[in-house]
């Protein structure tokens, strides 16, 4: 059983003056974050012109030119988040809090390259385009250590892996990279949040593999090692029935898993992922008790990412005429 954090208790926070500039900037930016009431009002709108008007004054306003088709809204929202995250990283004394969000695109690009498709479809966070292109030539030497060391350590031939195993391998490297980054910064709050995200992502990745009818034991090695969570992964792989997983996972994440199991079959995994994200979003809001520190950056980027995901959900949902109740239930937590 994994030792989950005391997520109901705020970890200690200390003000760090060197983070004052970026946190002052974030204080100004936080005033532009959207409220809970914003999304239901968009869901109730019937015309895209009304939505466009409603988005004036938000972060995404500058990216919505007259010629931008609504079908590209997801890409616009991703670009908006990326630009702001990169800009905040430049203003920060340490790139770690922003990189925790930016590396996700890097690993999606690696997955894309490993499937032998040309191009870099996701905005690169820390890994440049030419390194991604070298993956197509089976050159992994410049990839981050969490990925590279797993290949050069125990013998691993990526070319022999099928798509699922390859995805699990990249997921494992991504999670190790997250844990490595969290360990680099002296912040209990960020470390707790990252640990919860890693546990949640690990469980959902294994759950998806199980849904594909694959034997977890044969595939779980590709995800390892995951530090303190190794034992959790091995225990889950020994139990192919998700009904017993809440007891193995334990803690808050175990409770969330248990609640997700009560949802309709097709919604279980997405519900679990949403609940884990909401839990971490809620935990990160403790950072608002401090004046300056990396936690403020982490909290703001969590909130901004949630805002962009919520906007993508409601705008594309409206375009595709998805029911308002379905959209409302999928919204991420919005802090006060």
């Amino acid at each position, binding site marked *: 059983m994994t030792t989950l954090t005391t997520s109901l208790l705020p970890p200690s926070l200390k*003000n760090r*003056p*060197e983070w*004052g*500039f*970026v*946190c*002052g*900037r*974030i*204080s*100004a*930016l*936080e*005033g532009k974050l959207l409220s809970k009431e914003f999304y239901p009002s968009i869901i109730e709108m019937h015309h895209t012109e009304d939505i466009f008007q409603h988005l004036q004054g938000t972060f995404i306003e500058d990216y919505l030119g007259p010629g931008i088709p609504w079908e590209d809204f997801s890409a616009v929202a991703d670009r908006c988040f990326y630009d702001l995250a990169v800009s905040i990283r430049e*203003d920060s004394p340490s790139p770690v809090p922003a990189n925790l969000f930016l590396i996700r695109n890097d690993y999606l690009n690696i997955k894309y390259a490993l499937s032998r498709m040309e191009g870099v479809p996701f905005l690169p966070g820390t890994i440049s385009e030419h390194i991604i292109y070298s993956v197509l030539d089976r050159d992994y030497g410049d990839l981050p250590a969490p990925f590279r060391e797993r290949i050069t350590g125990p013998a691993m031939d990526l070319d022999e892996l099928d798509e699922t195993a390859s995805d699990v391998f990249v997921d494992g490297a991504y999670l190790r990279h997250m844990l490595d980054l969290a360990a680099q910064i002296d912040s209990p709050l960020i470390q707790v949040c990252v640990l919860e995200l890693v546990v949640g992502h690990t469980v959902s990745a294994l759950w998806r593999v199980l849904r594909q009818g694959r034997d977890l034991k044969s595939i779980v090695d590709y995800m390892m090692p995951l530090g303190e969570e190794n034992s959790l992964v091995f225990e889950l792989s020994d139990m192919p029935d998700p009904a017993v997983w809440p007891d193995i996972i334990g803690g808050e994440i175990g409770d969330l898993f248990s609640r997700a199991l009560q949802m309709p079959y097709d919604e279980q995994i997405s519900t679990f992922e949403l609940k884990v994200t909401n839990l971490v979003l809620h935990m990160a809001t403790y950072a608002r008790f401090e*004046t*300056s520190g990396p936690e403020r950056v982490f909290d703001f980027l969590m909130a901004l990412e949630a805002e962009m995901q919520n906007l993508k959900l409601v705008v594309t949902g409206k375009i595709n005429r998805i029911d308002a109740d379905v959209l409302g239930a999928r919204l991420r937590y919005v802090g006060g």
Partner: protein
Amino acid sequence: MTPEWIEIGRGLCYAGAGLAFGLAGAGSAYGIAIASHAAAGVMREKPELFGRMLVMVALPGTQGFYGFIAAILIMTQTGLIGGGSLKITLGTGIALFFIGLGDGIAQLMSAIKQGEASAAGISLIARRPESAGRAILFPAFVETYAVVALLATILFIIFLTQPSIIQQAVR
């Protein structure tokens, strides 16, 4: 009392004066730097808030002046400025040394903490500019104890350097 002891007494009281303005000045500089970082970050997004930021940034600067006042008072009361130097006893010198040190520490800490409180107020103004009036109140409370420390220092210096008291001690 020998001239050597009087010299030691004078040396100690001027060391106390040095600590009073040195520590207070250092604290103010640090406190202003803390508030300035936050204010500069806010102005990157909202340059129109410059006026309100300026007040918050200036708040921790007062402690440096309080330390300066304490140091000047020690120098005038003991005759370093203005002539007519008193014969400072060793006991008075030690007392003035620790009064200067105590005042310096009080000003140092309050300036740093006021800088942090100002930075928190700056965050509030950045989110809600209309709250500027209330945001200034919390750092102002920190100022109270810097003022109390200065008042106590002034009283100690004045009464310790009364010529009648010193002459009585010298006899």
